[in-house]
């Protein structure tokens, strides 16, 4: 069996991390192909329901990355994203998704190499965690079965 290739989604802000990924490109820094990038104006815009949606669509891991603290193009969007992430993490634990599947990071427009490392590190971390099954399992559970599960 070939090695498990995780599917990674990156939610990034336009001003720092998207530009940082551009820089990785212009610097020709090679990294894993597993990542698909979705561009947002700011990490503050990222509705964390999108993260759950991405898992539902089959993502095995997610990167959320924006500007470094104090460098937000919109002054404070990244702080809001960070706070939301702290709360969201608890929710993940509660619903039984391993919070290691979401990597929260800062990559500036000047950090092409950091972006490449971030993607590679995330891919190997998720590879160790294995495919994301939790969500799929839940999908197959009928309402009766949920009762059984709880009784178990």
């Amino acid at each position, binding site marked *: 069996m070939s090695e498990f290739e995780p*599917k990674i*989604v990156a939610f990034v802000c*336009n001003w720092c991390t*998207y*530009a940082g*990924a*551009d820089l*990785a*490109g*212009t610097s*020709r*820094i*090679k*990294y894993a*192909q597993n990542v*698909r*990038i*979705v*561009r*947002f*104006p*700011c990490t*503050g*815009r*990222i*509705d*964390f329901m*999108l993260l759950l*949606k*991405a898992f539902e*669509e*089959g*993502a095995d891991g997610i990167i959320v990355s924006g500007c470094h603290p104090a*460098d937000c*193009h*919109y*002054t*404070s*969007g990244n702080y*809001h*994203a960070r706070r*939301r992430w702290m709360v969201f993490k608890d929710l993940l634990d509660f619903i039984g998704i391993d919070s290691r599947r979401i990597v929260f990071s800062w990559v500036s427009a000047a950090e092409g190499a950091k972006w*490449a490392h971030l993607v590679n590190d995330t891919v190997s971390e998720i590879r160790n965690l294995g495919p994301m099954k939790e969500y799929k399992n839940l999908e197959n559970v009928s309402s009766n079965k949920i009762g059984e599960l709880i009784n178990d």
Partner: protein
Amino acid sequence: MARIGVFICHCGENIASTVDCGKVAEISSKIPGVVFSTDYKYMCSDPGQTLIKDAIKKYKLTGVVVGACSPRMHEPTFRKVVASEGINPFFCEMANIREHCSWVHPKGEETTQKAADTIRILVEKVRNNEPLYPIKVPVTKRALVIGGGIAGIQASLDIANAGNEVILIEKEPSIGGHMAQLSETFPTLDCSQCILTPRMVEVAQHPNITLMSYSEVESLEGFIGNFKATIRKKARFINEELCNGCGDCTLKCPIKKIPDEFNAEMGKRPAIYVPFPQAVPNKPVIDKDNCTHFKNGKCQFCKTNCSAGAIDFDQQDQLITVDVGAIVVATGFTIKGTDFFPEYGYGKYKDVVTGLQFERLLSSSGPTLGEVRRPSDGKVPKKVVFIACAGSRDPAKGIEYCSKICCMYTAKHAMLYKHKVPDGEADIFYMDIRAGGKNYEEFVRRAVEEDDVNYIRGRVSKVYEKNGKLIVRGVDTLLNSTPVEIEADMVVLATASVAHSDAESLAQKLHISYDSYNFFSEAHPKLRPVETNTAGITLAGACQAPKDIPESVAQASAAASKTIALFSQDLLTREPIIAVSNKSTCVGCFLCQSVCPYLAIEREEIKDRNGNIIKTVASINSGLCQGCGTCVAFCRSKSIDLQGYTNNQVFSEVSALFERSEEYV
């Protein structure tokens, strides 16, 4: 029904060498809604653009996805193409298959698949796009210039001469800045005040310039073309309208021993003072901390001696709000004091001075009236050692950059010293001589060849006092690293130029970015060296990085020209990427209001036809909103959306993430 066209660019070999562009076009053609897809060598070239235009006509396309480079590069290009065919430009999206794909991955199926996935994600976005129209906002044709040094003066004059109003604010009692403190200027040795003071007077008399000295920015709101600045006009305890500048008060003040800031603490001043004789405005100010009246109410000498009755001990700080369309930040720099240097005596040796202090000793308006006399005993020093790079280029001191002006002014100091004390000796310890600039190298050569200044390449490890002499211990690296000890009468440190201590807080007030040294950051180091990342705010002078006078003046004129260009338009066009609220579903929790960094969310009352308030909802000020979308993610009832990144768009993008086409399964 959407009719979407997909155009894959080879970018010469840049994309095509690792991505099979034909294959991507073929896969894309199978996405529902895609009616045409093709690939081409250079999509941004003229034939490439024509190809898109023809396809739009032929296939009656309603949306376009271009798979090429980063949208940060060519999005405007392709949106223009689409717009020329009568489609709303926001129905054009770019899939980044170069920077994010072909350049970072090896040739192969996986890379081609990633490109195809990226196209599919953007096709889903375009499918959910809506037409957007640029926003027009009015421009207030009045500029705020912060800082009245040479950069601020130059910018103010240029903007005002173009027929625009300028408000120039300066935190010190007089404009003039550091340039007013200089004796002569390199490389021509013009007298600094002789060339500066006429400009200062011009500022004061200019009909378009409002000068507010002893004032600072309190806060700033708004956006390009429509800023609202609140300025704190500090109480100087003088009624400026009544004061005629006679200066009697300063002579009568019994307190006379306060270190004089203008003379870099080389001289003394009274508690009520005019910083220097040519000050603009030429009105005194009372130093509240040192004034006997403010300490214990026992003195009123200045008041009783003022024939104009201009002394007003009850004056309060005033907060003045002004509307301005653009801002030039020209707050300048400061230098490290000698107390920053433990190896040179922590500032405890009186005859170890900074370059700025030496400048005052050389100046004919200085405390010694231009005679070089050392601070400790007033004797003329016969041996002066200059230490360049005191702090600069020294990671151990936390200042890794070059302060840029020191090589030149140290050469000037040594030269002027030799002119004034012909039998004196001047030694300069240096790391490198950086004399890049018109006539700069020649100037340094002149110091060496004509004025006999002794340059020693090496650093100084220690300065200590012995028998009334300052022993400078260093090394001469050009003479096989020989240790050198020089007995000097005076030591001048070319201390590092650094940002003002309040630079960080000012940057935060203005929402402009700054670097790790608290110098303000330009929008792009090469191509936008004058603008900041905040539209409408430009930089001039040494607040951005250490600069000499010609550079500061050039940048000030550049900032002025940016401002004048802005003011040449009556209406500004803005990208319509802003938030909109749905007033029928908004429940008025105003969580959005608390997270908006731009105070763009207002309360709007919805009334019935009798005028009774039904509910209060969030309404977004399209002028203030910058489109970060933080409010969207926070809205509990999904009543705010961000144009260009609507929930529909981003959720459908995510839904399209992993839909693999049959062939690759």
